[in-house]
């Protein structure tokens, strides 16, 4: 249930502290979701209110790492939207793997808690292409890298994830990709052993370049329009001509200013293809 509710003035105050004291710029995050994330961080750390959060940030210099980790929402699901992953497996990945001199670059540009990355790796493994591509993954914190490398994700609902995998018509059993350590699921870390992590500050600033597929699902929903345009611009320049961009199924380039740089590859799954010029 919703407990403490943060007001707009207090929200701006936290944003100012993050910018002035730490150089992290959250000014162009979508306000409603960002407020909710702040409420979540305040509640989960036993803080009383926004002032409590500001105090904790200023008096405990290590807390910023924890904050950055908690402020971005967990992905929560493996193979979210199975039909998206089917199209990726059956149409997009075969396309980018074809006739490439170098290892094609796939960029999980989302700030993912690991589920998108592992879902992708499982699909590549089932296509026998895991070692034939170079995967880059965006992260905010070392904590996130460690969590992903340890295989100890926290995909919340086993039943949903298993059902998603079945709807995907995968080649194996979902359960063959993890072991249990007590009550904790530990995914097969071999899946991500060749992943290159790209550490970003509060949004997409660095890019690997020459990317053939960028996955950025359910991310621009957390940005306002200014930041949406800026980040999509970054992704656009990083993609090769004919490269693919995947957004969330309820995100659309039509609400950004990059629409004319892409053609629609699959409208239902919101997969776009970078135009040649």
């Amino acid at each position: 249930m919703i407990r403490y509710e943060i007001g707009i003035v207090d929200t701006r105050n936290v944003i100012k502290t993050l910018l002035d004291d730490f150089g992290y710029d959250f000014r162009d995050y979508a306000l409603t979701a960002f407020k909710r994330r702040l409420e979540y961080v305040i509640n989960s750390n036993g803080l009383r209110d926004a002032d409590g959060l500001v105090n904790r940030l200023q008096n405990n210099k290590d807390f910023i790492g924890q904050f950055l980790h908690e402020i971005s929402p967990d992905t929560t699901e493996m193979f979210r939207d199975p039909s998206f992953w089917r199209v990726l497996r059956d149409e997009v990945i075969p396309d980018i793997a074809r006739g490439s001199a170098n290892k094609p670059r796939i960029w999980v540009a989302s700030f993912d808690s690991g589920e998108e990355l592992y879902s992708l790796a499982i699909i590549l493994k089932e296509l026998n292409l895991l070692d034939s591509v170079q995967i880059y993954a965006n992260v905010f914190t070392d904590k996130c890298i460690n969590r992903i490398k340890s295989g100890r994700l926290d995909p919340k609902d086993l039943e949903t994830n298993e059902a998603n995998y079945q709807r995907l018509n995968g080649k194996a059993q979902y359960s063959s990709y993890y072991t249990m350590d007590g009550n904790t699921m530990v995914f097969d870390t071999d899946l991500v052993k060749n992943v290159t992590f790209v550490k970003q500050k509060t949004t997409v600033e660095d890019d690997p370049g020459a990317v053939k597929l960028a996955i950025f699902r359910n991310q621009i929903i957390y940005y306002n329009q200014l930041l949406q345009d800026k980040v999509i611009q970054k992704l656009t320049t990083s993609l090769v001509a004919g490269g693919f961009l995947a957004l969330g199924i309820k995100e659309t380039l039509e609400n950004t200013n990059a629409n004319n740089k892409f053609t629609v590859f699959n409208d239902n799954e919101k997969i776009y293809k970078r135009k040649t010029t």
Partner: protein
Amino acid sequence: MYKAVIIGGSAGSFQVITRILHSLSPNFPLPILLCLHRLKHVRSGFVEALSIKSGIPIIEPFDKDQIKPGRAYLAPANYHMYIELGNKIALSTEDPVNHSRPSIDLSFVTAAQVYREKLIGIILSGANRDGAYGLKKIKDLGGLAIVQDPEECQVKTMTEASLKMTKVDFVYNTNDIIKFLQNIKS
């Protein structure tokens, strides 16, 4: 004087919603925001089913879509639907609230913060307590709170939870809700 109507429903609300939408004329002066519990993995079919008899277009919005009068906006499966300042839809994949995504509480609370006293909130039949807090928030910020008469509901849990938490303005059966909406002038 009102700027939007928001309706929350769950088990037993589909027929009520269908009747309400059927009764509206194409020049209904307000947007209608619909947050209905639905199967998370079934993406298509729901809008189509609701559209068959609806008097106004039903849209399953994309993130940042502009909210316009005379249309109904249905919260998409597996996303929360927020109302943002600037009269826009914002979507979110944050954790379920009250075991629900979309959560009625979240849609109601964010709509209340944007429209304040210019919002009409309606809670229909449903099997959990999602929406009760949201309706209270609408009332607290000066909006109008309506609850479907529990006696008419297929499942009373949601309406009874709402009535327990908030001193609502009206307890209406479906016909009264329809009459009320039809009398709204721009």
